[in-house]
C-alpha cells in the first residue's frame, strides 16, 4: 500500500505520495526543501501519513 502526506504550509496543500514510509519521508523533505526552503521531522510525517491507492 502506498503512503501519502499533505503539506500544510500556508497556501500549499500539496499531496505527496510514495511507495512506503521511508520513501515518503524522503519525498516530503524534497518537497518542503525545494518549495518552502525548510524541512519536516520524520516522526511528524509518519504520524500524519495515510494509506494511498498508488504512489
Amino acid at each position, binding site marked *: 500500500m502506498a503512503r501519502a502526506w499533505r*503539506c*500544510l*504550509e*500556508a497556501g*500549499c496543500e500539496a499531496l505527496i505520495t510514495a511507495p512506503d514510509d521511508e520513501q515518503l519521508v524522503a519525498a516530503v523533505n524534497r518537497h518542503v526543501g525545494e518549495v*518552502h*526552503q*525548510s*524541512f519536516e*521531522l*520524520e*516522526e*511528524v510525517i509518519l*504520524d*500524519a501519513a495515510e494509506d494511498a491507492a498508488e504512489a
Partner: protein
Amino acid sequence: MVTIGNVDRGAVMARSEIMDRGAGDDVASRFHFTREMIEGSIYRKYEKAIRGIWNPKDLDYAQDAADWQRIDEVKQRGLLGVTVRFLAGEQAVTDELVPMLAAAHALRRYDWTMFLSTFLMEEAKHSEFFMLWHDRVVGVLEPDEVAAHFLVRSKTVDPTGRFEVKDVLHEALPRYGGLLMDAVAGGRQAEIEAAFVQFSAAYNGFAEGVLTMPSYEIVIDTTLMWDAFPTLREGFRRILADEGRHITFGTAATRMLIEKTPSLERLVHQVFDEYRGNLVGLVEYQKAVPGLDLQKYQTMKVRHYRNRCREMGITPDQTLIEQILDPDIDFVVGVEAG
C-alpha cells in the same frame, strides 16, 4: 503547586477510593505489558528512542571553537542570543516534565511512562549538549556568564498594544504543570485527563511544536550561511529527531483524550489563545542573527500549527493563522542582553 511528596493522607485516601490501582489480591494488575500496547504507536516511539540514543560528549567541538574565534562580534552576539535561549529552554523543559510522568502513572498508561522515561533523559541530554557547546566553544558556563547574553523579553513589545509577549517556558509550563499535579493528587480521572490536555497543549503543542521550530531553523540556516559551526548543526539535527518523537507523543496522547471527551478540544484552543502574542510575531532572539529571511520563519509557523492541529484531531483557529501571516503585525525588538 502540590507535589508528589506533599500529598496529604486525606488526598491519598481519596485517590485510592477514586482510582483503585488494584494492588491487593489482583496479581495480574502488577503486570502492565499487553500485546496491544507493544504494538501501539507510543511503544514504537519508545523503541525508536532506545535505538537512537546518542551522547553529546561523543561530538567534537574543536571546529566550532575555531569558527567562534573567526566571526565578528555582531555575529557572535546574534548567534549567542539564540543559543543561550536554547540553553535555558532545554533546562526548563527538563525540569517541567515530571507532571506528565505523574499523570501517565495515575492514568495507568505504562507505555506513556516508558516513553516519557526516554523523553526526560533526552531533554536532560539536550541541556547537556548546550552546556558543553557554550563551555567548549564560547567559554561560558556559570549562570552569571550565560545570563549576560540572555536577550530580555521585556524589550519585545507590540507597538499596537494588541498582543502581549509572555514567557511560555518559565510561566506557562510551571503553572499548567502545577494544575496537572493538583489533578493527579485529586485522583479523579476526568480531571487528570483535562489537565493533561492543557499541559501537553502548552508543552508539546505550543512550545515544542510551533514556537521553537523556527528557532531550530534559524540556527541551522545561520551555520549554513556562515559555513561554520558543524557540531552545532549536527547537535540540532540529533535534537530535532528526538523532538519529533516528543511533539508527536504529546499530540497523539491529546488526540486519544479528545476522541474520548470531545469537549477537551476547547482547552487546547484556550492555551494557544492565552499565548497568541508569542506566535503572531517573531520575538527578540529570533531576530538576533543578521542577514536571514525572517518572513520565512514567520510563515512556517502556520505549517507547524496546522500540523499540530491535524495530529491532535482538532480544528485550527483560522484567526490565529491570519494573524501569523499578517505582515502588519510585528514586534519592536530590543536586542540588549542581560
